């Protein structure tokens, strides 16, 4: 009897340990949220939420410092939108080709290529962008400095390609073949079938791929830091700009006082965007699963 009790106690302890381990992720998410909110709120209070979010000048080291992050917010939005505009069409058509048309050998080869693109560290993209794109833009478009929003958009578009291709391919491949067979049997050509039957059937998954790309692009810091020039201008395609992520990263090492707190507030704004994107992603993934 006693041994049985002991055994039960032992099993309960083990169960409790695993429960704690299981809840770790929840704990980490709470930890991150709480820390960001606690350290991000004071500066927003001091500066005033309207001045902080909609102020057009960021001059954190000036004698009379100004902390307006509208340039960063807009740059992040424009930069992400640009990357999506360039990256999604390329990724989408590549995904349809690979999922539906490509011969097995080409498909295998391209999957390896996409795997490599996904594995290249972001600083390597930044380095290549710094030495190829930036001088290229300068001499092609005749601007004083090639480090610009345009360079960042191109680098981000390349960086989101692999996730867009992979996720779209997975959802295109999951389309029931009956749909396609029916369309083919009715006389539609393969091109018409795959673009007008399979793509609409996979649209939740493709939407999820786009949202995933948005999340990647808005959260990327190092590569953007290396090619965007990092000056707190209002966004314009050929000017040096600063993103939300790079605003945090570029001043972190030497900031203090209100400036440092303002950086945490920027991180909080970025986190808020990411949470919205996550919610959208979850919505599309769930809809994809339900079908």
């Amino acid at each position, binding site marked *: 009897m006693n041994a049985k009790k002991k055994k039960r106690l*032992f*099993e309960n302890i*083990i*169960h409790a340990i*695993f429960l704690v*381990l*299981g*809840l*770790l*992720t*929840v704990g*980490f998410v709470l*930890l*991150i949220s709480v820390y*960001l909110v606690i350290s991000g709120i004071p500066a927003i209070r001091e500066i005033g939420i309207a001045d902080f979010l909609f102020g057009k000048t960021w001059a954190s080291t000036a004698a009379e410092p100004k902390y307006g992050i509208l340039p960063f917010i807009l740059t992040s939005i424009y930069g992400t939108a640009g990357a999506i505009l360039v990256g999604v*069409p*390329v*990724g*989408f*058509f*590549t995904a349809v*080709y690979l999922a539906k048309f*490509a011969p097995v050998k080409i498909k295998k080869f*391209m999957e390896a*290529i*996409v*795997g*490599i*693109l996904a*594995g*290249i*560290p972001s*600083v*390597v*993209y930044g*380095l290549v962008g*710094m*030495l190829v794109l930036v001088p290229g833009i300068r001499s092609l478009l005749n601007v004083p400095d090639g480090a610009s929003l345009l360079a960042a958009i191109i680098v981000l578009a*390349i960086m989101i390609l692999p996730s867009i291709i992979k996720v779209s391919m997975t959802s295109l491949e999951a389309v029931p073949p009956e749909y396609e067979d029916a369309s083919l049997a009715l*006389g539609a*050509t393969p*091109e*018409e079938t795959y673009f007008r039957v399979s793509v609409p059937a996979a649209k939740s998954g493709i939407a999820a791929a786009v949202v995933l790309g948005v*999340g990647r692009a*808005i*959260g990327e*810091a190092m590569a953007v830091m*290396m090619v965007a020039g990092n000056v707190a201008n209002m966004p314009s395609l050929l000017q040096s700009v600063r993103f939300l*992520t790079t605003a945090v*990263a570029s001043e*972190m090492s030497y900031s203090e006082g209100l400036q440092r707190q303002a950086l*945490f507030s920027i*991180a909080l704004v*970025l*986190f808020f965007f*990411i*949470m919205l*994107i*996550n919610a959208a992603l*979850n919505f599309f993934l769930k809809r994809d699963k339900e079908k």
Partner: protein
Amino acid sequence: MLKKKLSKKRKTYIAAVRALMLISTAVTCTVAAFVVIYVIVKGVPNISWQLLSTAPSYLADTIGILPDILNTLYIVLATLVLILPLGVGAAIYLTEYATNKKIVAAIEYAAETLSGIPSIIYGLVGMLVFCEFFGMGTTLLAGAMTLVIMNLPTIMRTTQESLKTVPQSYREGAFGLGAGKWRVIRTVVLPGCVDGVVTGCILTVGRILGESAALLYTAGFAHALNGIIEGLGRSGATLTVALYVYAKEQGEFEIAFAIASILLLLTFLINLAAAMTAKFFKRRTAQ
């Protein structure tokens, strides 16, 4: 015959989408080939034995990346040691213990949220929590702990996938023989999820190799030569961080490209290792 009957409109549509698909695929392929070839052509000639085997010296005015290689190795080891029990434990809880659907949903939602958070935010929170709140300072260990939080969902997911493939009948057989739950997990379930754990580790190593934003402010960017124990307690740059510092702060592009080509090579190896383990375990389960 059939093609002739197609209307002009349909023919243009077909030609257009075909062209778009081929152009897109060609663009993807060209971009990848360009980046890889450019980095290798610019980087490999700069790799020398002296670069790989020494620390940077101001006296001799030479740059060596041995400390960065070692730091990368230390941080990978420390992260894996810390993350394995946590990630595997969490996966075991989800597949073996959890009965409350709400808890499972909360854990899975949290894991998805974690994998969507950008690394710069991990860096910031890691700095606040580990370096400042716990007073660890800018050290490799603080960097490794930040990476643990970041990669936990990966290990959890791959382990969970492979736990699902352990047949329910094995567990029932063990229970039927009178084994307790813990014994079943230890002797039946855990050996069955080795493949998931290995895959998770490979993916995690790949992500650590590429990580820079999360490490810049948690692990710092010193280039001192240390042993593993003292090294973990000090600040140090991994290869990726060193690449960033050399390229952006110091303008040493030759060194940066040499590191970039080493990183690319490691990425190839990681991709290859992932593919090979997948094949290896597939064959084993097929038998």
